[in-house]
């Protein structure tokens, strides 16, 4: 493709290697100095690591910096890591944390503009331009997906249709009537649209839909094939997490061979999750990002818990920014169900609240053929909660369901099972069974 590959910001995305590294070094230096001055939590962390801002001259020194994790955000909940006064914050998003408290992120006006820029690159890499009709079916709300894609498409000058999630028939009607050319949603929802549209007799091949940007959920190349066959459009993967910015951290170009990182803003490292040492070039490890240009919530070496690798070779599209492979797993037990982050510990808390004790339980994740991801919570019925009256057992299951829905915003199925029916490995219960086909 080379010079004719579609792109939004040629200068940033095709920046010559040495210049990019110099820019990153400068941004890192400035960022370390800033968080040291403005964020007491970082000042303490740096002091504990024996690092002074003057020690960090550039990228070569990044390994001396301590990691940041979700725990840091939880310990300083909600706004303790913000590096600017609250007057400068114009937006707050949140995602679920491992227990109870959510992970809160803030944005200044400049952060929102930078986010729009990196999302414009994301959408631009798939050829989105100002004449496009962008149907944005990511959920609008605390979740970063909806507003992230929205601002990026608006920056490009496209016509944004903010449908948000759900009401699939109406989505499809709009798609036909307005002439949607670009679709943004989770990959499993793309399949739902395809399936429901087929039932409605819609011929996607005759619609102007050209490209879709699918993320917020793990998926695979075989699923890409299914989506492309069903919707007759390019299906591109996008990557992001709210702590770093939201969607817009990484994006696929039309080569569909890995996700380019917007590394002038988010510097990627891959580490061995056990030792914290850098993983050898091109090998799998945990993704770590330094968000050095963010004003409200700059983060040093944030551990994403996502497993991937950097692809050493340059992409055929000609972009110089590096690529990572599709995220292939997690170093922790976090599940992503329909865009909602779920930790088994959260379910455990809810069961504790409802039953008064922690029962044995297992989470079964499944993706129905051409359907959304489903979470089934299997709970062993102990003698404490067992009743000879069915209505009481049904009430119990119902309360667990309602509590999970109201706490996590996720509808799940609750199934009561016999004790010891849950598989144990080496005495320890296996908490998660993921039956989704996420093979790469």
């Amino acid at each position, binding site marked *: 493709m080379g010079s004719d590959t579609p792109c939004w910001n040629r200068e940033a995305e095709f920046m010559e290697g040495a210049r990019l590294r110099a820019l990153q070094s400068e941004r890192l230096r400035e960022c370390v100095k800033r968080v040291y001055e403005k964020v007491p939590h970082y000042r303490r962390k740096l002091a504990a690591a024996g690092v002074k801002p003057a020690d960090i001259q550039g990228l070569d020194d990044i390994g001396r910096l301590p990691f940041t994790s979700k725990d840091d955000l939880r310990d300083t909940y909600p706004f303790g890591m913000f590096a600017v006064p609250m007057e400068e914050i114009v937006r707050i998003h949140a995602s679920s944390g491992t227990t109870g408290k959510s992970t809160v992120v803030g944005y200044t006006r400049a952060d929102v503009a930078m986010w729009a820029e990196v999302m414009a690159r994301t959408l631009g890499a798939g050829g989105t331009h100002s004449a496009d009709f962008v149907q944005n079916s990511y959920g609008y709300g605390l979740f970063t997906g909806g507003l992230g894609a929205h601002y990026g498409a608006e920056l490009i000058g496209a016509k944004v249709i903010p449908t948000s999630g759900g009401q699939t028939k109406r989505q499809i009607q709009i798609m036909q009537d307005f002439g949607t050319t670009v679709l943004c949603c989770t990959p499993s929802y793309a399949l739902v649209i395809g399936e429901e549209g087929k039932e409605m007799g819609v011929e996607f091949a005759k619609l102007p839909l050209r490209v879709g940007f699918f993320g917020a959920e793990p998926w695979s190349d075989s699923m890409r094939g299914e989506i492309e066959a069903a919707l007759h459009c390019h299906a591109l993967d996008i990557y992001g997490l709210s702590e770093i910015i939201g969607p817009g951290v990484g994006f696929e170009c039309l080569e569909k061979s890995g996700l380019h990182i917007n590394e002038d803003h988010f510097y990627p490292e891959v580490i061995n999750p056990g030792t914290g040492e850098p993983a050898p070039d091109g090998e799998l490890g945990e993704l770590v990002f330094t968000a050095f240009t963010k004003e409200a919530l700059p983060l040093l070496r944030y551990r994403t818990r996502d497993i991937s690798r950097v692809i050493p070779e340059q992409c055929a599209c000609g972009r110089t920014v590096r690529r990572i492979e599709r995220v292939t797993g997690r170093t922790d037990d976090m599940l992503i169900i329909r865009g909602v982050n779920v930790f088994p510990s959260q379910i455990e808390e809810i069961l504790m609240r409802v039953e008064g004790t922690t029962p044995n339980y297992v989470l079964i994740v499944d993706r129905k053929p051409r359907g959304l991801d489903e979470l089934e919570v299997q709970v062993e*019925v102990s003698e404490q909660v*067992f009743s*000879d*009256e*069915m*209505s009481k057992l049904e009430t119990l299951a119902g309360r667990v369901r309602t509590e999970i829905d109201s706490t996590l915003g996720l509808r799940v199925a609750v*199934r009561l*099972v*016999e004790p010891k029916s849950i598989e144990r490995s080496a005495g320890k219960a296996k908490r998660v069974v993921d039956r989704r086909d996420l093979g790469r």
Partner: protein
Amino acid sequence: MTAIQISVFLENKSGRLAEVLRALAGAGVNIRALSLAETIDYGVLRLIVDKPHEARKALGDAGFTVSETEVIAVEMPDRPGGLAGIVDLVTEKGLNIEYLYAFVGRRGENAIVVFRIDEVAAALAALQGGGVRILSADELAAI
């Protein structure tokens, strides 16, 4: 004057009922009556047996979730309207029957009904007031 019912939680999968019955047979427990209530995923098996404590232990050892429930067993005339008359006695007092099941025993003309009612004392009074004969746990075991 109440009897003990053994309640067992059962998942709806093949072979589980047979395992319950095997465990009881192994402990020399004889089943007098049983009833099974079910949903799509699971069921509750309710048993009247000759040796409730042995039954509970055997099922617990076999890994089942078991509870003992206090129920009322009465004799009723084995003829049309027999059960209706007995249910009326209880509901007239405003008592709520959670569930009941009946079986025809070997005691001549009469059938036996097992009631699960939250207000046990009030239900016993209502039944006895209506001249219904309540079976003791021993009598039930000896059927």
